């Protein structure tokens, strides 16, 4: 053997997401720290960006005056009721499209026609149909959640391994058993990733609905602060929305870990 042997260089690394604990938090902390530092020292004028500690003081005020719950509770309720209505209808229609050719032929073009409509544009219509109260807000959120849920659901049903369905039929399983025990769990991964999109849309529409006719709610609070150019309160409201978004995403992550543990 020749004696000019070198180690073979390693070139197979990367392209594999790994779990890094705490990095997400670190990014938050660094950004917030930078924000406080730059506004406190005056590098960024308080007219441009409020001090983080002032925003925090706004929260203290909101908490002590009880206004926090006055705004957050109605918002959470609208979010929950509207999303639940939209998800229920969306999953039902999505399954119908996935399972029945007739429903597919009839409803897919309709869903395609509804999908690109900016749902906010329909709010005045919903106010006329369902009233200025909670009804129109529920309807707007439900409608916004409905279309992406339908698309995610029937996509998920379409992607269920046909071999498993064939297996179910070959063992004489009833139609209902095949749907419940094979199609539903098989479509679940797609359903849950669709849920992420649907609920993000629900938060956006929640704020839109509350800006156009609500006394209380996070959207109303932000709109009021914005029209007074009260940046501390504006940021306080925006942070509530971010927190809601993070909480929803975390919740779906937990659901995925629990329900989809069978995936490798």
């Amino acid at each position, binding site marked *: 053997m020749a004696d000019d042997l070198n180690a073979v260089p390693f070139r197979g690394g990367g392209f594999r997401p790994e779990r890094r604990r705490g990095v997400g938090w670190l990014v938050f902390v660094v950004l917030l720290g930078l924000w406080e530092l730059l506004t406190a020292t005056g590098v960024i004028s308080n007219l441009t960006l409020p001090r983080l500690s002032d925003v925090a003081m706004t929260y203290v005020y909101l908490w002590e005056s009880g206004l926090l719950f006055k705004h957050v509770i109605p918002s959470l309720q609208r979010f929950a009721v509207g999303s639940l209505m939209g998800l229920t209808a969306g999953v039902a229609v999505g399954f119908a499209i996935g399972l029945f050719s007739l429903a597919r032929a009839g409803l897919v073009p309709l869903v395609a026609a509804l999908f690109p409509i900016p749902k906010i544009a329909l709010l005045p219509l919903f106010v006329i149909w369902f009233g200025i109260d909670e009804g129109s807000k529920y309807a707007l959120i439900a409608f916004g959640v409905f279309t992406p849920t339908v698309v995610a659901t029937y996509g998920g049903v379409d992607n269920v391994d046909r*071999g*498993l369905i*064939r*297996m179910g*039929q*070959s*063992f*004489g*399983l*009833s139609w209902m*058993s095949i749907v419940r*025990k*094979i199609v539903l*769990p098989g479509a679940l991964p797609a359903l849950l990733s669709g849920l992420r999109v649907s609920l993000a849309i629900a938060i956006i529409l929640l704020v839109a609905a509350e800006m156009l006719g609500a006394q209380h709610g996070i959207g109303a609070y932000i709109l009021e602060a914005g029209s007074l150019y009260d940046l501390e309160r504006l940021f306080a409201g925006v942070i509530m929305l971010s927190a809601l978004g993070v909480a929803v995403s975390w919740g779906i992550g937990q659901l995925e870990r629990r329900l989809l543990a*069978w*995936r*490798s």
Partner: protein
Amino acid sequence: MDLMLQSVGHSYNGQTVLEDISLDIPSGQIVCLIGPSGCGKSTLLRLIGGLEQPGAGRVLASAPPADSLNPLTYIFQDFALLPWRTVAGNVALVLEDHALSASERAAIVQDVLARTKLSEFAQALPKQLSGGMKQRVAIARALAVRPAALLLDEPLSALDSQTRELLLDDLVDLWTRQPFTGVYVTHNLYEATRLGARIVVLSRRPGRIRDIVDIDRPLAERAIGDPALEAIQKRLWGAMRDEALAADRELADGR
């Protein structure tokens, strides 16, 4: 259960894949179907088990024994296990639609897992199992419904050769303890000569019966390197070689 095919034919989109197949599958015997890829042997198996309707001819079956829960039962090449169910859950799946008490069901699951040496894996998920173990689970599931005939669609083709050998032994053991009616589709001549009482050679598309070879030697006495079996394999290969070569050069859509 006796099965009988009467001049069965089938076509997809105007292209004939099977033509005039007449065949007797007597009770308690394994009939192997071999042929080049694309000869319609898997289609024929789906026709036998009622997963597809023949375009021509008839598939007939004698009355199954009364205790059979699913007379015609498949074992698939890709195992077809539900990834979200445990081994025991996958077996239980096919019993849940039958009127059985919970204790009867549990007893059947326990029994078939013991027969396929899977008892200690009852709570494992499919993703934790090797290919050979997955196919054993599928065999256990098939046994759970007390089939009158097993329809095996290239059951060992997704496995490496050592695992294949082990599973062949398992299948031979199962058959020796209690002879079952079987239709075994494969492209592997060795598997066919190990398991088949009768080997049916199909021609390439459109699939017709080209040759039928009966092997009298009992399954338990057949082994690797048996010169008599090798002679049969050689004869079968002689019949198939040109067909396989032509099939290999065919375009998938047949144009």
